């Protein structure tokens, strides 16, 4: 173990890396191309014609071959030269790791990763990754040993500078309990993230509403001047001009104003078909949502609905409506 003084020195040195890019943005050595897609699909057992069959893909909503979203990082892998990098640091991440390795934190274990994709990549797209050391935890005791969790965040952009997605990757850099012990799967080796629902952009005018969902509530904004309810939230009341507001909790009781059944295109993170719904809440505002627990052929305008907060596996919460039985 390090002396308190040495440890303070080490932590000062490593925390100085937080917020730093690991290096200049790196543009993949090859643009998105069919051979790499085919090899990746072979390796992963992926068989979708959207990735592999130019003729079928042309008829798909993509209009041509696209790359599997999970390949995003593959386009900017830097290749073999980086393999030996930890002894001969080539970027800031390596320098950070080397500091820790030299201080006895020799083990490294991938713990988890999150990814988000903005669009499918098409042939010829050039991917650039800009990777930042986002976070370093305080020292933690884990099953593998004492160490620091290091989170990097890569932001991927295309040839026009438009964002393609992002990935966070977290590793534990640790002093092994028993040197050379291989990490077992139970220790949480990196698993590919399950595709998740599209998240709303959060801003001052809306994030409180989503936060309330996480707290289990369907909220309706109420004007502080004239008490008129309004949804979606906005910063000023169109009726009286007041910028004061609070919120009331909706009962979730409502009726269906109109709906659609979304069959196409199908994208990751959702079960299709989606029954998208506009609900007239009994409090008097209309709210966008979707309907579950009902065969889509049985959905009809005017049907009574009950909204409940649904929480996804990743913790994101939002109101979903179900048919309401107690309709009197």
């Amino acid at each position, binding site marked *: 173990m390090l002396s308190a003084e040495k440890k303070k020195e080490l932590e000062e040195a490593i925390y100085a890396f937080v917020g730093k890019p690991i290096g200049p943005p790196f543009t993949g050595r090859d643009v998105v191309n069919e051979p790499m897609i085919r090899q990746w699909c072979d390796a992963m057992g992926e068989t979708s014609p959207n990735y592999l069959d130019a003729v079928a893909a042309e008829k798909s*909503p*993509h*209009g*041509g071959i696209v790359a599997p979203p999970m390949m995003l990082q593959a386009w900017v892998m830097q290749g073999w030269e980086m393999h030996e990098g930890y002894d001969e640091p080539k970027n800031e991440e390596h320098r950070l790791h080397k500091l820790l390795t030299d201080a006895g934190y020799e083990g490294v274990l991938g713990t988890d990763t999150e990814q*988000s*994709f*903005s*669009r*499918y990549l098409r042939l010829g797209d050039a991917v650039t990754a800009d990777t930042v050391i986002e976070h370093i935890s305080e020292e933690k005791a884990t099953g593998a040993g004492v160490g620091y969790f290091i989170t990097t965040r890569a932001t991927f*952009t295309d040839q*026009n*500078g*438009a*964002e*393609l*997605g992002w990935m966070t990757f977290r590793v534990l850099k640790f002093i092994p309990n028993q040197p050379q012990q291989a990490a077992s799967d139970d220790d949480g080796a990196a698993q590919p993230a399950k595709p998740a*629902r*599209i*998240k*709303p*952009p*959060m*801003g001052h*005018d*809306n994030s409180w509403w989503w936060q309330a969902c996480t707290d289990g509530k369907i909220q309706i904004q109420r004007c502080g001047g004239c008490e008129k309810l309004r*949804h*979606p939230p906005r910063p000023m009341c169109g009726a009286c001009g007041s910028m004061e507001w609070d919120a009331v909790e909706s009962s979730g009781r409502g009726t269906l*104003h*109109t*709906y*659609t*059944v*979304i*069959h*196409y*295109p199908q*994208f990751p*993170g*959702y079960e299709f*078909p*989606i029954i*998208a719904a*506009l609900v007239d809440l009994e409090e008097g*505002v*209309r709210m*966008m*949502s*979707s309907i579950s627990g009902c065969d*889509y052929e049985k959905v009809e*305008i005017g049907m009574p609905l009950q909204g409940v907060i649904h929480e996804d596996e990743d913790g*994101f919460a*939002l109101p979903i409506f179900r048919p309401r039985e107690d309709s009197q």
Partner: protein
Amino acid sequence: MSRTLADRAAIAGIGATEFSKKSGRTPLQLAVEATRAALEDAGIAAAEVDGMVSFTGDQNAETEIARCLGIPRLTHFSRIHYGGGAACATIQQAAMAVATGISEVVVAYRAFNERSERRFGAGRQGPTADVPVPLPTNWYAPFGFVTPASWVAMFARRYMHEYNASSEDFGRVSVADRKHAATNPKAWFYEQPITLEDHQESRWIVEPLHLLDCCQESDGGVAIVVTSPERARDLAHPPVMIRAAAQGASSDQETMTSYYRDDIAGLPEMGLVGDQLWAQSGLGPDDIQTAILYDHFTPFVLPQLEELGFCERGEARHFIADGNIELGGRLPINTNGGQLGEAYIHGMNGIAEGVRQVRGSAVNQVEDVDHVVVTAGTGVPTSALILGRA
């Protein structure tokens, strides 16, 4: 001098590239080709252009087009928001610039590889650096509600409920468009008419929209040259007068998702535009012989007919079923095939067809055309024109 915009400017030239699914060249080249063709059609030298107008979403800089064509100076350039709702507003901007003496020759343009590069129909599934997500989107995207077809379907279902309309009523719009496209060699669906059965049997995209309720996605460019009536009089074609040009956004307006109005079976922003068209021009629906009604999705053609006063509210399905919107009917619409049949160039190809109808040079020419109504994107803040003979 008149205080309105009526007859203060004229369209002197129209130009377009071919309409395809894969242009094989950049949007800038498409924009330049279309602009050059429009100037040639007008008989105006590029060096005389001093104004340019486009859509906020168009990726081609006015300045780059000017450099390509050798346009030495621009005294007016402006951009209009709200997707296809901008189409006719670009002509309004051009007409206002000409009417006020700001510019003498203004080109309105739109060019993109909407099919082979960035497809709008795929939906907006997250923010990208070049397209910031407008805050309203956050109330929809988490529910998987991200495509234009789904946004329109929500209105369509309510319209059906309010007015007892059916999918067949929407389908008849598609059938009429494709009938007109079938005899237009420039149309992507040239010689490919469809039947109502084809429409009904086409797969669901977003219920109640079938595939054949949805317009194409296209690569291409269109440009329109606007100048003063005096200047236009001396040019190759007789001037096509801009008799009225209007924009409109209405109460509780959102972009494609104006769902919070008491009644969502209408298009009040188009009603607002229509009122201005009639007021500016002194004309009424009976003075219009043909119309180009924005048709990204068929259901919105019905409330357009109602908002513009071609039929009573809720009566569009009967107006259509009686054959009024086809060639030979009371108000043939989308005689070029529309965006379902000709191409989806964000409404700009519809303006060009309106010009051809007034000139008498359309492939599906309506007889004795004095006035044409052209509308822009529906479900968004929108715009429209009345074009007429000098």
